[in-house]
């Protein structure tokens, strides 16, 4: 905890407050485009209004907390693992979008996540990810009849 004398506003806390305010504005903008229909009871606009107002008030509350230094202290963080995991997810999305298939997408995600957690044997992890993807695909697609994204490998099975 910082001493109360050092009244430096918490920048991250202010950013959160700003995001909440932006979300409230987004709801307001969206609900202004709804058409008014004559319905009994409150229409579809009431609930968005309540949520937008609530988010607006909470934005103020969070801003006050940021100024008072009420947010918990943060530990240092490493960006590299975060980028690896999100990158793995992004590659997965790309693979599925371009029809590379579920198994290869899973392979990349598995290896990227393992690397994010400090594994250095990337090729081994790729192999494990491939086998895992293959097993999951066979079990869930063939036995439980779930539709998983198809690619060249899936079509061979």
């Amino acid at each position, binding site marked *: 905890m910082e001493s109360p004398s050092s009244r430096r506003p918490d920048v991250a*806390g202010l950013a959160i407050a700003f995001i*909440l305010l932006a*979300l409230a504005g*987004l*709801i307001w903008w*969206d*609900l202004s485009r709804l058409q008014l*229909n004559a*319905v*009994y*009871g*409150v229409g*579809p606009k*009431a*609930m*968005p209004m309540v*949520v937008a107002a*609530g*988010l607006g008030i*909470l934005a103020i*509350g*969070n801003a006050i*907390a940021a100024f008072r230094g009420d*947010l*918990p202290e943060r*530990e*240092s*963080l*490493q960006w590299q*693992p*975060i980028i*690896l*995991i999100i990158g*793995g*997810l*992004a590659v997965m*999305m790309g693979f*599925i979008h371009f029809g590379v298939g*579920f198994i290869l997408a*899973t392979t990349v*995600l*598995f*290896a990227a*996540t*393992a690397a*994010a*957690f*400090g*594994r250095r044997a990337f090729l081994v*992890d790729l192999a494990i*990810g491939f086998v*895992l*993807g293959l097993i*999951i695909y066979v079990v*869930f697609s063939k036995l*439980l009849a*779930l*539709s*998983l*994204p198809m690619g060249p490998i899936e079509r061979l099975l």
Partner: protein
Amino acid sequence: MDAFVSLAHGLTVAIQPMNLLFALIGVLLGTAVGVLPGIGPALTVALLLPITFKLDPGGSIIMFAGIYYGGMYGGSTTSILINTPGESASMVTALEGNKMAKAGRGGPALATAAIGSFVAGVIATAGLAFLAPYLVDVAVQFGPEDYFALMCVAFVTVSATFGDSPVRGLTSLFIGLLLGLVGIDILTGQARMSFGVPDLLDGVEVTTLAVGLFAVGEALYVASRRHLVEEKLEPVRGSLWMTKEDWKRSWKPWLRGTAFGFPIGALPAGGAEIPTFLSYSTEKRLAKHPEEFGHGAIEGVAGPEAANNASAAGTLVPLLTLGLPTSATAAMMLAGFQQYGLNPGPLLFAERPELVWGLIASLFIANVMLLVLNLPLVGLWVRLLAIPQPWLYAGILVFATMGTIAANPSVVELMMLTLFGIMGFLMRRFDFPIAPVVVGLILGPVAEGQLRRALSISLNDPMVLLQSPISATLLVIALIALILPFVLKGMSRFKATED
């Protein structure tokens, strides 16, 4: 007694071989995810929702409940042996349990946790069976305005009253309510918060949100601070069995823990943390050797573990009788009911008694299974902790994405999963509670529906909310629960003084 007859009928459902199998799968999965750090029962149920879509509703729900109970048992193993509690409710167990393990008394610590969980689970499930019919009788008289008021109580208590910061809790809730707005409004057919994206017209999938927050968010969070923590697994040394002295010191804390856990879980008060903290401080005060606390006092494991399990059974009371989830896992179970078009509440007791009472009866069976699984077989579960962390989390993410794609094979759904994951990461980093988001998404649209129904019956007269005595009382309770934490700022600080 009505409950006896219903329960006996339920037992005939629960002992059908298929349902026994589902219960066994549930408790096995539940114990496994409870033991493994990083996955909790809420995430497991979320992952299973798309897979179980085509299975028998009764069996699946028995399995979900088994996962809930199993997660509560398994969590204690991790807390005791590696001091990293799987979920917040096991935090207190780690205080004394890990000290016991370090002193070579890991066996008795695991035993008192398992037997205490069993005692609490059985008593609390009995409490559920006998309380449920009464609550159902009350709930039948509820009108839409009363349900709306009840949900307001749940919103406030889950997010504001018992958290560290009411502002952050309410922020989480309103994010959930915002997500609940997305999609086509059922009553007028207008698209809200969809911005012309066809994938958003159906609304935000509960599974995508829960899996993103719990699995992806947790993986990002743990990976980003991996350099800070070092986990050390304490081997179980010495006898697994409790001595006569251990039994003597454990049985009272078990019962007291149950007495804390069940009512607090049953009230829409959210979470198992409060009763575990209460139980811990009570045992510390009542103990004959208070100086042992902090160095491995068995009472400090027995009481909180019982409270933990009793509150899990307690949360099923509002879930089954009123359709009101008060924890993240209960919220996911509600989503499980909803995917079969079932709505927990008094109607479900009337229309599908075999399902509800079969579930309650199977909880007794699940408790027996869990005692067997956790006492003699604890060594097997400990081996799960030997899975290298990189593979564990890589596997979790693979299953998380698989569940999401299986529910809706689209890139947009994966994008939302990633976004919710980043959101979950930020929420953990800035200490925003996660459960209110899930509860907000699930209950928000229900509350809106009830309010609009109430107002259309009363021809737009908002006074209907205050004219019904039930609704008026509940709204006053909600208001008090909202204001109280701001007035008693010290309340959130009692946790700090316990440490």
